[in-house]
């Protein structure tokens, strides 16, 4: 097997100082795109660098997050689940209670406002589970923008409800039939649309991947999750959690939670990747736990690929984690030793799903169920007075058909 070049991991003193001006997180990130995209990326970078410091823009964003999304989302102590596990207290950050049912709206509200300020009348998006597509369609409807969502044909089949929601919101959903017909292919197709229609089109990428400035911009818009949660922990529990966890596909909800805690070196940070049927089975989507550094979708990061460099087809019960790459900041945090990334199997996620449903009356998204499963593992390792903070990134209504089918139930 070919060995990738060894990666230089810088000694990091301030994790909030990244990316560097080239959009790099150490060796990761960057802008690995065709020449045709360099100009639109420069235009976007310039606009976003200006807006992220613009008090008017930030005030508008803040108003929307409060009155439209419903922020702040609460912290919730899952008492019965914690007692059942028999370890530390499991605290859930309830992003599932946001408008549209997941953290994804934090980002689409932000990028939608950037699109509006840049004068782009048309937005495009890629989606896996459909949550980002719904969140993009929602924002487009509210801002009066045309919206086209690219979605893999396989994902359209397993997320019918979200497809219909997007249509109800006025978006056009374009099935992508190339490659593995999942999220990565939808991203390729959206990128092609953008290259072709860049004059009037804003591409809302749904995760912390893609070329710079996307990993930074999507992180910034989701970082509200960690900012709120950190302040809420201090107010409600008088201290920071011992460990925090979130599921990692592309990694936007995870970086959203993690970022504010990165310089709190005593807080253990664990990302839960989709181990599918087990990492040993080859049927998984654990890019950090089982992949290697490579280049995909505009950035250098950990990818799942074969020895010819062909990107692998991944597997996860949850469409939102079914992605062979991962945001470059996570790759950086892994190599810097600041965060750990571990696999959670389909079966473990399903078990966590049922436990949370029956013990707390919360149906988590299948993606978030991976985080819940990981939170349970972490809680078991800690004493009762310990605190494990888990990002409950989305609600599971969209998944009931998938779960019923898996369990042989006709709805």
């Amino acid at each position, binding site marked *: 097997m*070919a*060995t*990738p*070049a060894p990666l230089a991991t810088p000694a990091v003193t301030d994790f909030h100082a990244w990316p560097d001006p*080239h959009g790099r997180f150490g060796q990761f990130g*960057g*802008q*690995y*795109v*065709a*020449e*045709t995209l*360099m*100009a*639109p990326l*420069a235009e976007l970078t310039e606009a976003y660098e200006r807006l992220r410091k613009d008090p008017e823009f930030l005030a508008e964003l803040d108003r929307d997050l409060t009155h439209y999304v419903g922020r702040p989302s609460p912290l919730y102590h899952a008492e019965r689940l914690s007692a059942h596990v028999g370890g530390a207290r499991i605290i859930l950050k309830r992003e599932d209670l946001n408008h549209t049912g997941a953290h994804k709206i934090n980002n689409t509200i932000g990028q939608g406002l950037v699109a509006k300020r840049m004068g782009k009348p048309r937005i495009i998006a890629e989606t896996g589970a459909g949550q980002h597509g719904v969140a993009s369609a929602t924002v487009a409807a509210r801002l009066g923008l045309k919206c086209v969502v690219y979605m893999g044909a396989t994902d359209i089949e397993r997320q019918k409800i979200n497809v219909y929601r997007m249509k109800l919101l006025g978006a056009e959903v374009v099935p992508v039939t*190339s*490659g593995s017909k999942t999220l*990565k*292919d939808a991203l*390729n197709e959206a*990128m*092609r649309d953008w*290259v*072709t229609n*860049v004059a009037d089109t804003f591409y809302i990428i749904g995760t912390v991947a893609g070329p710079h400035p996307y990993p930074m911009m999507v992180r910034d818009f989701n970082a509200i999750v960690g900012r709120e949660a950190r302040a809420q922990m201090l107010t409600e529990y008088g201290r920071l959690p011992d460990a925090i966890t979130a599921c990692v596909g592309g990694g936007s909800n995870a970086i959203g939670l993690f970022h504010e805690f990165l310089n709190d070196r005593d807080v253990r940070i664990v990302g839960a990747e989709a181990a599918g049927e087990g990492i040993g089975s080859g049927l998984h989507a654990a890019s950090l736990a089982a992949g*290697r*550094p*490579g*280049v*995909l*979708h*505009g950035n250098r990061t950990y*990818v799942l*690929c074969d*020895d*010819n*460099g*062909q*990107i692998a087809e991944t597997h996860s019960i949850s469409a939102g984690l079914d992605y062979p790459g991962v945001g470059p900041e996570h790759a950086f945090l892994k190599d810097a030793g600041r965060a750990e990334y571990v696999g959670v199997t389909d079966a473990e996620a399903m078990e966590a799903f049922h436990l949370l449903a029956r013990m707390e009356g919360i149906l988590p998204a299948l993606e978030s169920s991976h985080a819940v499963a990981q939170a349970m593992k972490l809680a078991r390792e800690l004493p009762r007075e310990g605190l494990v903070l888990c990002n409950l990134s989305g609600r599971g209504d969209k998944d009931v058909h998938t779960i019923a089918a898996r369990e042989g139930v006709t709805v």
Partner: protein
Amino acid sequence: MSRIDQRFASLKAAGRTGLIPFITAGDPSPEAVVALMHALVEAGADLIELGVPFSDPMADGPVIQHASERAIARGVGLGDVLRWVGEFRQRDTDTPVVLMGYLNPVEIHGYEAFAAEAATAGVDGVLLVDCPLEESAVLEPLRAAGLKTIRLAAPTTAPARMAQLCEVAEGFLYYVSFAGITGAGRLSTRDIASRVADIRSRASAPVAVGFGVRDAQSAKEIAAFADAVVIGSALVERLDGAGTADEAVARAKDFLAPIRAALDAH
């Protein structure tokens, strides 16, 4: 003088426009690749662009994407592509070969190993679509091994950046004739002409124009102002489904001959 420089020098001396066909290595079949390369030369190709299949070709349209998928399904990898160039070189030591593809296969193969193997096989240049100037430090081993790094320029490229590209361009500068993916159908010749004229006045490297060239007519229009014409998707489309290497060779010759004639009539 490198094979690419030599070729462009002799084209210039003869007052001819270069013809650069693109094929995806492994499509329509792995057996046909080397024979196809020779056929392209016989039909008038001055330089061959050989596509290295990649699973996620973001900058390519459906035609080349599907050709890549078919090649990958047949198990074609970077090692095969290098082997085929080596075989081609046994009979043709004059025609430059440029590998065109994406970064990940090279990254996974290892830059040092790739550079050494490609140079040994007889590759002359490499065009890595998703590796812009800013990320090119990783390509240093390729340069050290004597491989030319072919750069892309686009209608969206800003003036300051264009100046930079003109300065570093080596082998030839590949001008993407519009801001779209490969194989799309739009082409405003007058617009391209003025931009290419501007680039040619500033770059010491010759300028090849591609993306959207479909037939003798569009090739001829571009020949009026470019040093070379690249033709990709239309050729790949024509080759799709050729059942045997002989058929692929026949199709390639039929397709390329009128284009060569049109360029020479210019």
